[in-house]
């Protein structure tokens, strides 16, 4: 028993356990369930039933078994490589999306610290700058997949993806400057704890969405454009360039792209929760001073999960509600509207912070 406790107190062992918990029990299951959630919700919006046939015995689980069926199916599908493709680049392209998706979760705290133990894999000083660095990696996935496939549609998708993603990366960084100013740090734990303070006594929590309402919309828009989902899905363009940059992929490598997309959706949701909706902090919980620690932690995990699932749902709802933008509309929305707006937001926030805080 003592030996186990001693092993558990080694930081590296703790990190590995946390990584296993947050990736294998939170990010991956959420990403997988989102694939079914999207199909079910789109069916509901289009007045269909949605997937409901896969069954074991007579049990269908209301479509839940399609998760297993889809996985098994793509394992046993042929893995094709188009003629004239650049084999090595074609091979490594699916890696980037998954790496970027998984690494986003490294700095997200899902509950408050108990003593020295934090529910966060690592709390590095650059914090969100690391997120910017790692999300720009996923550009390489799309570009390499597009250029290495030796296919016209894939190349079109890849170039569109590169232009769109690098453009929206600029606004993503600019939109968060307000948050950095208000909370005075890029470290995630500082930002989350800064959101645990209140205005007017105990009336309104200082969540990012209240301190930075414009930044919230700008950042959310930029993140959706980064994940290349509707209404910014010109790089994939189902109705014109078939599937865009991963058109030539099949079988498990295609699944890797799809899983990366849904893990990215989950990543967007946890970022929005952490930066704009107080992270794990349950509002007004500090008023209940005699709350036991275990209950507080459970409530924090619960609140974090609920807001995260809400943002996943919101992205799916947006995809099936809004018509898609043409590519030129996407680009001019970004450069001509979002860029001036986010610069103005930065300047305005600086004035407010200097004058009143």
């Amino acid at each position: 028993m003592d030996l186990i406790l001693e092993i558990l107190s080694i930081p590296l062992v703790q990190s590995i356990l946390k990584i296993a918990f947050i990736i294998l029990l939170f990010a991956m299951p959420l990403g997988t369930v989102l694939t079914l959630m999207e199909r079910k919700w789109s069916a509901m919006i289009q007045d269909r039933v949605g997937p409901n046939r896969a069954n074991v015995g007579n049990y269908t689980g209301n479509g839940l078994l399609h998760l297993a069926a889809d996985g098994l199916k793509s394992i046993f599908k042929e893995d094709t490589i188009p003629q004239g493709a650049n084999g090595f680049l074609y091979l490594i392209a699916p890696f980037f999306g998954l790496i970027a998706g998984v690494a986003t979760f490294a700095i997200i705290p899902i509950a408050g610290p108990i003593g020295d133990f934090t529910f966060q894999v690592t709390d590095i000083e650059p914090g969100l700058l690391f997120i910017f660095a790692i999300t720009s990696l996923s550009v390489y996935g799309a570009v390499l997949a597009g250029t290495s496939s030796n296919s016209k549609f894939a190349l079109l998708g890849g170039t569109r993806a590169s232009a769109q993603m690098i453009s929206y990366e600029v606004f993503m960084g600019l939109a968060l400057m307000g948050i950095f100013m208000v909370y005075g740090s890029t470290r995630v734990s500082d930002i989350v704890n800064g959101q645990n303070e209140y205005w007017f006594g105990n009336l309104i929590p200082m969540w990012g969405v209240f301190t930075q309402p414009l930044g919230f919309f700008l950042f959310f828009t930029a993140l959706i454009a980064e994940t290349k989902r509707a209404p910014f899905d010109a790089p994939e363009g189902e109705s014109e360039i078939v599937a865009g940059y991963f058109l030539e992929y099949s079988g498990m490598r295609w699944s890797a792209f799809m899983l990366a997309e849904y893990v990215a959706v989950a990543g967007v949701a946890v970022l929005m929760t952490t930066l704009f909706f107080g992270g794990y902090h349950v509002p007004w919980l500090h008023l209940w001073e005699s709350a036991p620690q275990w209950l507080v932690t459970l409530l924090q995990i619960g609140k974090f999960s609920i807001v995260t699932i809400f943002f996943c749902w919101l992205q799916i709802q947006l995809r099936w509600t809004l018509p898609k933008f043409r590519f030129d509309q996407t680009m001019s929305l970004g450069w001509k509207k979002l860029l001036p707006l986010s610069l103005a937001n930065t300047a305005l926030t600086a004035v407010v912070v200097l004058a009143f805080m």
Partner: protein
Amino acid sequence: MTIASGYLPILLMILLGMLLAGTFTVVGLYLGPRLRSKVKDTPFESGFVRDGTEGSRYDVKFYMTALVFLVFDVEIVFLYPWTVQVRELGWFGFTAAMLFIGVLVLGFVYDWKKGALEWE
């Protein structure tokens, strides 16, 4: 927390991401069937016979976007230190940052007037 202990878990996460993608690739390569044919190997082109002109030309707009991106990405890198220190630097820092942004906005207006942001 030393630098190494803070960044080691991130390296582990990246390795985990590579492991996941690697498993996907290997599983797909070894468990799937391999039935090659000439037609199946040709890149998809909606059923047309391909004429082999893939990757020959890009629209120049993509290069323009990349150039504008470079300018603004470097701009925001310079602005991050100011944003986290905005209270300490006070109105002097604010004026300096606004001058910096102002110069870049001039460049941005020039880009806009020259039509570098147009996609028609």
